[in-house]
């Protein structure tokens, strides 16, 4: 995180990957205990990653980072369970279908961010998708979408804030 705050994005991505790995079993366990499909765990993992990213200024750099991460993970897990209990239950067949469909050789897949992405304004969605799917850098994205790098950065940051709101 120290490296990330200095702008080392490779170190930051390593940290986020480690957080995803640490949070995933916590999310699964929480869902199982609540009697819910563990397929939803990845939605919680991604929600936690977004929150860690957007709230990283609330970490006190003089304190160890893992209690901060687990506190966020717990909050997001409880929040997800609470929202789910007020939501309509999905028939089990539909869950089974998506389970099969999501069983992809690549990294785990989640639907909530995808849904949030569909609701973003066109410009923000294009920026997020170009970086996510094609792995483009800020400057490559700027070239491809005929935007300035500054505008790409702003659209990206706004888009991530909007995605996080979709969860709340």
């Amino acid at each position: 995180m120290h490296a990330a705050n200095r702008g080392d994005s490779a170190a930051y991505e390593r940290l986020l990957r480690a957080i995803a790995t640490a949070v995933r079993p916590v999310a699964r366990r929480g869902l199982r205990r609540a009697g819910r499909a563990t397929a939803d765990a990845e939605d919680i993992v991604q929600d936690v990653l977004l929150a860690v990213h957007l709230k990283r200024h609330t970490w006190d750099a003089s304190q160890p980072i893992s209690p901060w991460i687990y506190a966020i993970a717990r909050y997001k897990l409880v929040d997800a369970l609470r929202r789910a209990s007020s939501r309509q239950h999905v028939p089990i067949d539909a869950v089974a279908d998506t389970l099969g469909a999501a069983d992809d050789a690549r990294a785990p897949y989640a639907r909530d961010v995808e849904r949030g992405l569909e609701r973003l304004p066109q410009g923000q969605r294009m920026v997020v998708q170009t970086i996510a799917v094609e792995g483009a850098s800020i400057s490559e994205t700027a070239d491809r979408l005929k935007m300035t790098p500054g505008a790409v950065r702003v659209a990206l940051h706004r888009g991530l804030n909007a995605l996080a709101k979709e969860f709340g």
Partner: protein
Amino acid sequence: MHTEELIRVLGADQQVSSRSTAGWLALCLSVGFAVSAVLFWMGLGPRDDIATAATTPRFVLKIIEMLLLATAAAMLALRLVRPAASARSAAVAVGAAIALLVAAAAIELVLVPSVQWSAKLVGSNSRICLTAVPLLSLPLLAGGLYALRSGAPTRPGLAGAVAGVVSGASAASLYALHCPDDSPLFVVTWYSLAIAGITLLGWALGRHVLRW
């Protein structure tokens, strides 16, 4: 979206919010306080004998009590918007500010003959106190909640309630300039009741607006 894709997007976003939550809270509360102060001057204004009152210990004490409570509660709010941060020392500070209110009232009971107790407690102004303090709190509460949204309260209702204490105590310190009742017995009863009301409102609002 695949988690690996999301991580790539997050890695590309280098914008860290640079302002500290403490500074942001101070700014938003100051704006709220300015609005409340204008409302106070338009609606009530300081009492006529403010110059003499300002030299009496009871008048000074009630303002200090409210400012201490507001400051301690603001410190606590800042702890509550940091996940996993220890809030103990700030909570102790809030407890101490409340204990001061109670201790002052207890000393008043000793200093004042018992026949005057109920007159001191009821005062002459409790209805205005119960109306003015909550109303003057509203701009402060709005500013406080708005600022705390940049943090990450894992207990949004609690953080909202503490924001309510901050705004209620700050508003009470303004109202105290008007209020002719300086007895700690009056303060501990009516000020506390008014602040409790706005604390409840802060809790109810916080549960919704401070979620993230």
